[in-house]
């Protein structure tokens, strides 16, 4: 399996360049190729389950060359990214017909996937930066894809804030390299554990927290998210909210915090995370309440859910990590589903303003039921997946002696419920409005994508049957985070 690792980046990247070449004449190529690529990647991602290993690019050693590494956390992220990506590709086939240029869209989309896969695979901080920039540039472009007022404005703000964050991260990397003389994260961990912290390293950590916190949309670095996520086309919104903020933000943060800088070095680290997590949870949740734009409401609720994840990480206990990572996986699924629902509503009616919608449960029964399911999952109604991850996080809060965090978590769970119920009522269950009277159900592939994600909402709940404290797929990821520090990579499998 190790030898297949580069293909996670190479296949989508190659396809991204190949699509514009061949599809100027053949209009159906982008759809087919992108879906085929995503199907292959998703299958490959599932094959990595239970595997672990290293791949040294070009056969160089760890110190000189570039590492790709596969462990439990990477597997979890790969599965998330590529499964959601597959659903988005299926959804895009019919949804993106309302935009003009499918081939550019798929190119950018596959670049995004390549960058995301790269981020989770690389074991090297600078490569991580590069992949992150690939993700960033393609997502700025995808946000601006509609080229109208809102899209451009959102993309510009997103780009400026994102670039500042990238700059902070690069400064941090420079400082780390200057102090430790290596860019490989595993080696850094060893050297840090041996040498301890000093002033530049602490500054670097602060810059990382700020930079990746911005990528993860933690309050107060969140301001770009509610603009950018609604502006993008629906599948891209789903990808951004469901996967990108987690990969470029949460994943990297947790790697840095648990595998590189450890709490032994920085005693305050966890309480900082908890603080930022709980503030995000509350601010995002309350802001979601009053929104009228379906996607903006969902975007704010993403901030709130990210807060849950960060609180879980900030507890630092294995159970907290389990809850956080499980919630990350679950949130990817149900938030993508909800964004697709919003996209379907927009596709059918031309609007996503809740004030102009209503009664769609009769015109779009399938979409309505999918939204209901996704909403129940996000607000933690049993037996869907969101309930379980929230339960684990709340339990972890209590176990580690933070009852107030637990109280905030359940309170915000209620607020989330209020927000999504408002959305459901306004969009689907109220009386018809002029805009919605003649709406018809969305095409079959869009429904298929929603069904895939909705099924996942139910299926993921079954993961807890493999043990509440050690769910399948999540437990190896927790192990990877809690045991990786200080273990240098073993013998490589270089070509």
């Amino acid at each position: 399996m190790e030898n297949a690792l580069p293909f996670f980046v190479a296949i989508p990247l190659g396809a991204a360049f190949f699509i514009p070449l061949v599809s100027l004449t053949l209009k159906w190529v982008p759809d087919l190729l992108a879906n085929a690529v995503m199907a292959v990647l998703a299958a490959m991602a599932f094959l990595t389950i239970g595997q672990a290993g290293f791949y040294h690019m070009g056969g160089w050693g760890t110190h000189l060359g570039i590492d790709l590494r596969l462990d439990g956390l990477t597997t979890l992220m790969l599965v998330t990214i590529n499964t959601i990506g597959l659903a988005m590709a299926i959804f895009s086939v019919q949804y993106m017909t309302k935009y003009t240029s499918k081939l550019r869209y798929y190119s950018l989309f596959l670049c995004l996937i390549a960058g995301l896969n790269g981020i989770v695979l690389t074991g090297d901080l600078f490569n991580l930066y590069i992949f992150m920039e690939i993700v960033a540039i393609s997502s700025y472009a995808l946000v601006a894809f509609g080229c109208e007022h809102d899209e451009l404005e959102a993309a510009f703000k997103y780009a400026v804030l994102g670039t500042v964050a990238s700059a902070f991260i690069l400064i941090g990397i420079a400082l780390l390299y200057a102090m430790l003389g290596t860019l490989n994260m595993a080696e850094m961990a060893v050297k840090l554990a041996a040498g301890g912290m000093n002033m530049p390293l602490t500054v670097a950590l602060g810059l990382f927290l700020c930079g990746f916190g911005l990528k993860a949309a933690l309050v107060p670095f969140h301001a770009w998210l509610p603009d950018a996520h609604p502006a993008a086309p629906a599948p891209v919104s789903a990808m951004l909210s469901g996967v990108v903020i987690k990969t470029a933000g949460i994943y990297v943060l947790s790697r840095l915090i648990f595998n590189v800088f450890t709490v032994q070095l920085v005693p305050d680290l966890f309480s900082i995370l908890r603080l930022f997590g709980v503030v995000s949870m509350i601010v995002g949740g309350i802001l979601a309440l009053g929104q009228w734009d379906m996607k903006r409401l969902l975007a704010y609720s993403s901030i709130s859910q990210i807060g849950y994840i960060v609180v879980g990480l900030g507890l630092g206990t294995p159970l907290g990590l389990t809850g956080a990572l499980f919630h990350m996986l679950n949130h990817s699924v149900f938030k993508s589903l909800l964004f697709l629902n919003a996209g379907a509503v927009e596709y059918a009616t031309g609007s996503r303003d809740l004030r102009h919608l209503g009664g769609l449960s009769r015109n779009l029964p399938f979409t309505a039921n999918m939204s209901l399911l996704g909403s129940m999952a996000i607000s933690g109604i049993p037996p869907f997946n969101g309930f379980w991850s929230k339960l684990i996080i709340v339990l972890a809060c209590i176990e580690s002696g933070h009852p107030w965090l637990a109280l905030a978590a359940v309170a915000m769970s209620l607020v989330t419920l209020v927000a999504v119920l408002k959305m459901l009522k306004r969009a689907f269950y109220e009386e018809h409005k002029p805009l919605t009277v003649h709406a018809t159900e969305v095409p079959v592939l869009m429904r298929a994508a929603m069904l895939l994600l909705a099924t996942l909402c139910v299926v993921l709940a079954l993961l807890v049957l493999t043990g509440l404290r050690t769910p399948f797929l999540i437990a190896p990821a927790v192990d990877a985070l809690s045991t990786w520090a200080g273990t240098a990579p073993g013998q490589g499998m270089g070509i």
Partner: protein
Amino acid sequence: MVYALCLVLIAIGLYGVVVKKNVVKIVISLAIIEYGINVLLVLIGYRSGGCAPILQQGMTAATLVANSVDPLPQALVLTAIMINLGMLILMVAICIRLYERYGTFDITEMRRLKG
């Protein structure tokens, strides 16, 4: 001392990003930040009196390692410059489109998305 100059460069860029209202100036400020960081990266690898990390005739790898500056940051800077280039092009393109839509370069007038 030279490091401090890099930091000044970065600080000037940050100041520009926060304070300037013209979108083009914001983009330029971002570029300044990137330059500052690039210079910082190169400086990190610098060794006083070192030669360029290029293997010349009659030089063994050991002597190169002993005498040259650190090559890795230079490689990093090259990559970073390319990335910045892509970013800059994208942002300038967005600026042009923004001007077409809003008829202004003033970022404080682009406030359709709020709340």
